Each structure stands twice: as C-alpha cells, then as structure tokens.
C-alpha cells in the first residue's frame, strides 16, 4: 500500500508538430503537457474544481523537431521551451554569459525535479498559494473562479508584499522568471514574441498571458553588454526542494541596472526605484549606494497582516544582488 493518490484521469495525445498541438488545444478542452511536475501535482491533489480540468493533455515532448535545445550564437541565446532546467544550469555558455539564468534554473526544486521539469513549465507554472493548492479544492479561491481571497483574512505569511492583482495576493513562485526579466528575454510562441516583462498575468487559473491555443517555442536572450554582470539570489527555508520565500535577479554594470524580485507580488516585480538609483552609477557601487537602492526597492511595500518580515528579506536580496559576494 502506498498513500500516493492516483492522478485524476485524462486522455493523453502525443503531438507530432506544433501545429497539431495548437489545433488540439484550440478545441478548448486541453492543456499542454511539458515535464509534468506541476500538472501532476494539480491532477493528484484535485486542486481545481472538477470543471476546470481538461479532458486532454497534449504532450509537447513528441513534437518534431524537438523543442529541447540550447544554442548560443551571434550574441543571442536560444533555449527551446522544453529544455530541462538541469541542462540550462549546467550549460557552459549559459553559465558564462547568463549567470543569473544558470543559477536560477539550478535552484528550482531538487536535482530530481530539474532533470524532468522544463523551462517553459517553470515560467508558466500554476499559482502556488497554499489556499489555491489545498487538496480537493478546499478553498475555492479567486484564482479558481471563486469570490473570496482566503489569504486576505487568513494566513498570508508568504503572500504578496506589494499588493494585489485582480484581487489575488498569491505570489509568482518561479525562480527562472526574475532572471528572464532581468536579462530582458523574449518568449517566442507559435503566435507572437512576448517580452518577458509582459509575460505574466493573474488569470483563472493560469499565471501567464498565453492564450488557450498558444504554444511556447523558445526563449531568446540577448547577451548582456560586456561590462554588465547578472546574478540571482534566493531565500528559502531549505536550500534544496523549497520554493522561494523571496528570490531576485539583476543585471548590473556598464551604467545599466535591471533588478527584479519574485515571490513578492503576483507577477515578477521590477524594482524600478532601485534601478533608477543605480543607473549611470554602476561604476561607483559601494555599501552606501546598495543600501540606498535596497531601501528604494521596498519603498512601495504594502505588507499584509503576517508578512511584514518579507520586506526585510526582499531588501536583503536586493542588496546581495548589488554587492556580489556579500551576505547581509
């Protein structure tokens, strides 16, 4: 005997091409399936109301040519949407030129999860709010079409510190997402090219702007200027397995400053006030300037009843991103 519940049943279709996948998805009763680590969780624990599950999962891993690749050429990094996080974290070109992305991909879940989970799945993951994820739709929250946000009056220690979007205060938990925004990536789909900054949204129940029949194909990232350095920081209770309490990524140098926090807001949060303080002054970064920028990063915080402590964590993450090698 084992206590692991069987997955809610579904039909599995192996898509042979992107067009075929899009055609089946367009029928409306289907979701795309990549590595499956997030969807399996939803299917096992019956997180969503029954009517919100699709009958069909469209397996994208059978698409030919494969959407699993890493290719750095002519100053542009291209990563297939089905590329595993472990491959990204180990890739020599990614580690050398896109350090924030390598570190972010390498910090997701555990080694076992990274060997299966894909970059597309990580950035499109469903909400992780604990009311949302409670098994058997125990809390029919806003993200499932309900009319109540349980986190507002309940235990919100891990929720948004920068306010709500569409009433929701569950945070985006992706580790890769802030790295993509900091590096000014683009997400290429079968329909369009979306700037990373515009990719996330708060929908029922999804977390991205992707349409029903939209298939993520590739992530494109321009090489940062020579003098700029990208970095990633994550605070979690455990180093392995845990989702972030706060994470962040930055691209700093050559006068440029992009600083992005995640797990602090329903979508990745760009710390624009901190960026403004550093812009044009990246040659003169010191403790004092980092303090000033870190204060600015959290100046718009509006913490909930139980998560004021996350403001201090976010501030520390920003400071670490600005001052490499420090642990303050």
């Amino acid at each position: 005997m084992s206590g692991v519940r069987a997955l809610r049943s579904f039909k599995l279709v192996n898509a042979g091409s992107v067009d075929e996948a899009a055609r089946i998805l367009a029928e409306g009763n289907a979701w795309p399936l990549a590595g499956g680590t997030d969807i399996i969780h939803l299917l096992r624990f019956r997180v969503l109301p029954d009517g919100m599950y699709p009958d069909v999962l469209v397996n994208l891993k059978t698409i030919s040519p494969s959407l699993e690749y890493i290719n750095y050429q002519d100053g542009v990094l291209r990563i297939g949407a089905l590329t595993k996080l472990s491959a990204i974290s180990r890739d020599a070109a990614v580690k050398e030129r896109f350090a924030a992305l390598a570190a972010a991909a390498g910090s997701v879940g555990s080694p076992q999860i990274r060997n299966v989970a894909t970059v597309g799945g990580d950035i499109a993951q469903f909400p992780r709010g604990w009311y949302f994820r409670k098994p058997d739709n125990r809390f029919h929250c806003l993200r499932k079409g309900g009319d109540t946000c349980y986190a507002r009056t309940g235990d919100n220690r891990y929720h948004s510190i920068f306010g709500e979007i569409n009433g929701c205060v569950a945070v985006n938990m992706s580790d890769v997402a802030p790295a993509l925004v900091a590096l000014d990536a683009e997400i290429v789909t079968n329909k369009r090219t979306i700037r990373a900054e515009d990719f996330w949204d708060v929908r029922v129940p999804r977390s991205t702007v992707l349409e029903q029949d939209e298939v993520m194909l590739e992530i494109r990232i321009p090489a940062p200027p020579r003098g700029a350095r990208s970095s990633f920081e994550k605070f979690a209770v455990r180093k392995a397995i845990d989702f972030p309490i706060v994470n962040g990524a930055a691209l700093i140098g050559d006068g440029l400053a992009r600083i992005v926090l995640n797990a602090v807001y329903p979508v990745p949060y760009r710390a624009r006030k901190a960026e403004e303080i550093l812009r044009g002054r990246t040659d003169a970064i010191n403790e004092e300037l980092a303090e000033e920028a870190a204060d600015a990063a959290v100046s718009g915080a509006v913490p909930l009843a139980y998560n004021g402590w996350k403001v201090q964590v976010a501030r520390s993450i920003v400071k670490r991103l600005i001052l490499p090698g420090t642990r303050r």
Partner: protein
Amino acid sequence: MSGIVGAVEERRVIKININGREYEFEIGVDIQPGTTLFELLRSRVGLRSVRDACLGDGSCGACTVLVDGDPVLSCMMLAADCHNRKVETVEGIAREGHPLIDAFAKNYAYQCGYEAPAFIVTAKALLDKNPNPSEEEIVEALSGIISRAGVYPAVISAVEDAAEALRKRGVS
C-alpha cells in the same frame, strides 16, 4: 510520432527497460495515461524499493529512480513518458554488485532504511558521471532526499567509500 487528432483514445504500447529487462504496457489496458512511473514500478512490476514519504508532493525524494541514468522522482513522472527509456532501481543496482550496497551497510548509512534506495540510486548516478566527487558534490547530488533519521554524514562516508572501491576496481 503520431498524428492522432480525433483518435485521442488510441491505445499505445509503452516499452520500458527496467533493470535490464524489457517490459511492455498497453495504455488503456495495463496502465492508464495518468499512471505514474511510481505506480507502475510498485504495483505492476513489484519493485517495493520505490517509496513515498510525502504522499506524492514531490518533496521527499524517497521515490527516486534513474531514467536514462538521471535521478528523477517517479511520483512526478508519467509512465507514458518513459517509452523507450531505461529505468534503474536499487534492485538492479544491487544485482550488478555495485559497491554502494556494501558501503551503505558498512557505514550504517540508514536507520530505518526507508530512503536508502533513493540515496543509493542517486549516488550511483553521481558516481557514473563523477568517479571522484568532493563532499560538496555529494551533498548537492543527494540534496533532494530527506532522511528523517538524519543519516546524512554516514551517507556521505558511504558514497566516498564506494567511489574509492570503484576506482580500485578500475585499476585492478
């Protein structure tokens, strides 16, 4: 590759090599599309070394097996996704006479032993790629497995001993 729009219920045979033996499972008959690798290994194949401690949350690591040489959580992977792939569990690794088995016993690298199979298969994958891992590399490789008894130091010693045994075996 399939072009099976409108035929989504079409049955398909999944072929998996498990511990060196070829198996075939028919979707819709032997297994369902939603059957996980965990369920397949335990219930269909009877490999009881594949365990769970987190009810399928993906957070304990006890169900770890190797797929094409890489450690994965069998509870977070569909059996259908293992078509034409090679799966290894601790039963297969023990049958090979891998020194990890002895090293775990000699170092008492378990208390109840519940998660020992997961540690052993994950360590096997590490040693296949890296015959001389540092302590830091061992810790990182095994970081996804929880031991409630906290046997981690003994596990590290066991992996180091097994690595040494493998290197000696390579020399002789």
